[in-house]
């Protein structure tokens, strides 16, 4: 495996400081080649595809489901679906957006699966994991313990508020704000018109503003 594809913990790759987007592989041509290789049954190409998108899928699923273990489990389901359906990928959207769409659908299915079994209201034990920074990295690695504690508590409250939203609002907010997709990409990933994305985004932000009123006033987290 090439060193190009070592993950640096923020969803980008590269040991020489270049972002993933700058690499030929992630461009339109590179993506097409990768998909074509995967279609021919190239196991190494598929491993590369998984490695490129695994972090974003786990992060998305974790934020949508509020449970890290569930997120990792869903990630496996997502890549199984990608593997099975890659032949049907027409390239009308980017591979990343397509995978996002599969991931959101899988999370939705998983949520309904637990909802039917009345287990969706259980409190996950890994709340701290959802707020935990990646080992050996992150922007706050050099912060003081007090600041770090405050930051983790803030993240915990934001995640808790996120989980109180309905799935539609949560998914649009995570894709837009956490994953940084454009409204157009979010629309493709969710399979809804762009106008719907904007209205959902507006309502979701408003709901978060009300839920996080204490934090936004400048008050320290409880």
């Amino acid at each position, binding site marked *: 495996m090439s060193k190009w594809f070592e993950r640096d913990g923020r969803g980008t790759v590269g040991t020489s400081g270049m972002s993933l987007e700058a690499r030929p592989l992630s461009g339109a041509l590179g993506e097409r080649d990768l998909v074509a290789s995967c279609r021919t049954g190239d196991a190494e190409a598929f491993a590369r595809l998984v490695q490129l998108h695994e972090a974003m899928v786990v992060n998305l699923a974790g934020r949508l489901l509020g449970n890290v273990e569930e997120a*990792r489990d869903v990630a496996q389901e997502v890549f199984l679906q990608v593997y099975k359906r890659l032949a049907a990928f027409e390239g009308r959207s980017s591979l990343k957006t397509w995978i996002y769409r599969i991931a959101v659908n899988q999370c939705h299915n998983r949520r309904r699966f637990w909802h039917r079994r009345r287990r969706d209201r259980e409190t996950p034990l890994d709340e701290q*994991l959802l707020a935990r920074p990646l080992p050996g990295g992150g922007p706050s690695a050099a912060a003081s313990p007090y600041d770090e504690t405050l930051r983790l508590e803030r993240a915990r409250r*934001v995640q808790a508020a996120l989980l109180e939203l309905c799935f539609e609002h949560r998914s649009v907010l995570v894709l837009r*704000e956490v994953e940084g997709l454009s409204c157009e990409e979010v629309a493709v990933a969710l399979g809804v018109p762009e106008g719907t994305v904007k209205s959902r985004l507006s309502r979701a932000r408003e709901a978060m503003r009300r839920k996080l009123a204490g934090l936004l006033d400048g008050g320290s987290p409880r």
Partner: protein
Amino acid sequence: MTCQLVQERLSEWLDGELAMGVSLAVSEHVAACTRCARHSQELRAVTGLLAELPRLESVDPGAGPLALRLELAGGNRRPGLALLFRSFVAGRPHILPSLLTAAAILLLAIGAILAFDTGPLPEVRTTATWATAPVSGTEGNPLFPSAEVMPQQRAALAPEALQKDGEDSVFLETVVARDGSVAGVTVLQGDANVEQALIDALRQQRFEPVRYRGRYVAVSVYRLISRMEVRSPRT
């Protein structure tokens, strides 16, 4: 532009998604209105808080690469016949294979029924009267009792009936059981005075048991008894 209208557009304004004119109007309002300015700052802070959320670890440090786990999880394997026989009450049943299984079982059941069926039952004439029916026990009328074993029965008629002369008629339904005995007699039409005596007499009758396809069956016999002579014992 009112505060409400501005606040409805703040999200798109922050994203730079508004048209030039509308965006300018919102900017001017936000610059002049402290309430809307604070609202927009809070929305901006919300987006900042969400963007600050730490990225989650993609893999469990103790586990192998996801691609390897995918392979172990059966990514390349076909489910095979297990799909067909997955239980209906399984946690996540496959709906289509379950329906196929159910359809196959249904077809087998229908096939078994058709295989053992030897054809429709012949039509039973329930309205035929004794007078117009073909001779009993013949090929054209197999379901009629062939012969009465004890045809000579005497009816002990009621005194009122004995005083009466002339003709009379009674329409009866007699149910002949599988052993040839009379299971029941119902007077469908007739004189009430002679009913009970006739019924008692007819209940004593015995018929040749009726067989249909090798099995004894119960049949109903409709009889019109007419021109009954009523004589006084003195004469």
